[in-house]
């Protein structure tokens, strides 16, 4: 079966800097994939290549066989949805309005209706636990609440491919877990979910595959238990790191192991 998302030696250069360097990955449906790595590793650039925001300088990026940077915007919007980091700062609309705008790509579809739009919007509000904020103006919400509004908008877009850049960074522990579980469920509904994450533990616990990036290259890609090890992470993050089994989840758990200052 053809992979939904396919990168073949995809590179992105700007000037003399190579932000993404010959990345080859295939991602299928039902998969929840995380991309981790230090700041400046090229994770967001990789996501933007997949989203069609950027055109690869070399190699290819395809979604269901077609290059996203060549697709018409209204067609692409039915294929993939995108969550950008720090989304939603000064938006003067209510939460429900913003989430409803996620339905925009479907407005000309024969099978769509106002009732379906409303149902999908309510479902997205409930799934992201913001139904009680539905009539609030987005610019009055906290950063974490705004992130959940943006996630709800992405869910309302209802696309087979869902791309998220740091969906959990601004969230509290509870909403972080809830969001990871939600995205896991979204993948299991038959979608492809790709998320750039900083929390390697959340990635290890919830995602089917972890792609570890460093300096534009993929250093490892595979099931969390196969990929995460002390040597690789310590090298990539330039920091002593140990991987231990989570005491009751069984998934790998990443711990910083730098000796503490004496008075700490």
């Amino acid at each position, binding site marked *: 079966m053809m992979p939904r998302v396919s990168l073949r030696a995809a590179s992105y250069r700007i000037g003399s800097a190579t932000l993404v360097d010959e990345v080859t990955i295939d991602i299928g449906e039902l998969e929840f994939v995380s991309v981790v790595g230090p700041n400046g590793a090229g994770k967001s650039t990789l996501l933007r290549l997949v*989203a069609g*925001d950027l055109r690869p300088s070399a190699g290819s990026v395809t979604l269901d066989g077609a290059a996203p940077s060549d697709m*018409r*915007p*209204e*067609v*692409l*919007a*039915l294929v*993939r*949805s*995108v969550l*950008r980091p720090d*989304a*939603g700062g*000064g*938006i*003067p*609309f209510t939460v429900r*309005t*913003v989430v409803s*705008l*996620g339905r*925009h*790509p479907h407005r000309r579809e024969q099978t769509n209706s106002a009732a379906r739009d409303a149902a999908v919007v309510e479902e997205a509000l409930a799934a992201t636990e913001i139904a009680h904020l539905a009539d609030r103006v987005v*610019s009055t919400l906290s950063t974490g609440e705004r992130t959940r509004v943006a996630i709800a*908008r992405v869910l309302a*877009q209802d696309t087979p491919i869902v791309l998220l850049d740091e969906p959990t960074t601004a969230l509290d522990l509870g909403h972080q877990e809830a969001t990871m579980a939600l995205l896991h469920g979204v993948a299991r509904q038959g979608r492809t979910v790709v998320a750039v994450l900083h929390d390697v533990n959340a990635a290890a616990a919830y995602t089917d595959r972890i792609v570890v990036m460093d300096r534009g290259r993929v250093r490892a890609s595979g099931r969390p238990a196969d990929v995460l090890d002390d040597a690789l992470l310590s090298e990539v993050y330039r920091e002593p790191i140990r991987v231990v089994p989570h005491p009751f989840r069984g998934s790998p758990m990443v711990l910083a192991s730098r000796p503490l200052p004496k008075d700490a």
Partner: protein
Amino acid sequence: MTGLFVALLATIAASFYFGAVHLTPSEVVGVLARKVGWSLGPDPSIRAEAVVWQIRAPRIVMGMVTGVALALSGAALQGVFRNPMADPHLLGIGPGAAVGGAIGTLLGGSSGAIAGAVVAGMLTALVLRTLVETRETERARFILMGVALGLALSAWVGFAVFAGDRTKVPPVEFWLLGGFSSATWEMAGRSLPFVVIGAAVLTGGRRTLDILTLGEAEARHLGVDVAMFTSVVMLAVGVTVGAVVGAVGVIVFVGLLVPHVVRRLLGPRHGPLFAGCALLGPLFIVGADLAARTLFTPVEIPVGLVTAAIAGPFFLWLARRDSRVIS
């Protein structure tokens, strides 16, 4: 919304009643009633008929057309650039259209003025569009470029006027401060079709403008061809603004102020915003024109002086009071 509508009707009624020639309310009503085929009261005099139907009525209609054109254009530009300072005149589209209007008058009289201004308005919009293309993320710089373009083009209006036949071309102050004293039914009839087309395009984009409010990248992710949409809006603004500048000159501050006031009254979504602008724009212009021709009777002052005098301080107050206007 209803309040705006009632206020607009009141302003129109006042504009029919007040003026250099004193008429009684029954004379005004008598003339207007007969125009819709309804004989009400005693037959009005020929003088009353001329003042109401040939002078005041076209002036009011042209004011309404202008108000709709400028307020919708301002709202659309503020939306597409997500910048509260976007305004067709501030960005140079109005002054550009005025250059075309002055040249058009030389070539083809008052109908040439509107045609010339529409063409020049579109050209200025295209020039501005190519400047924006390379500076997609630098909104503040874009406004500064528009202002610079507008100042240069305002000077060109002067060149066009002084280089041409000054007995044929209206003076610089008409082009840069605006005026309705030459408004005729014919003029309104020539201007209106362009404004209708432009307004239809702009209001048709109301949902896309809502999406653009989420951000340029978000709009692209939701299927909006941002580059194409921006071009379409700017061209529509060029046509709309050109059609009124060619008729009545540049009237400043309307496109800037009216959308901000409507947003406070009706909220930030572009559907209600456009509807409100189509009421408050005419209200503001017809009111300002009434002031321009009655404040210093029998002398009439340029209507742009009135709009700037009212709107400038009001905008300052609004900007200070509501940080959202500027942030």
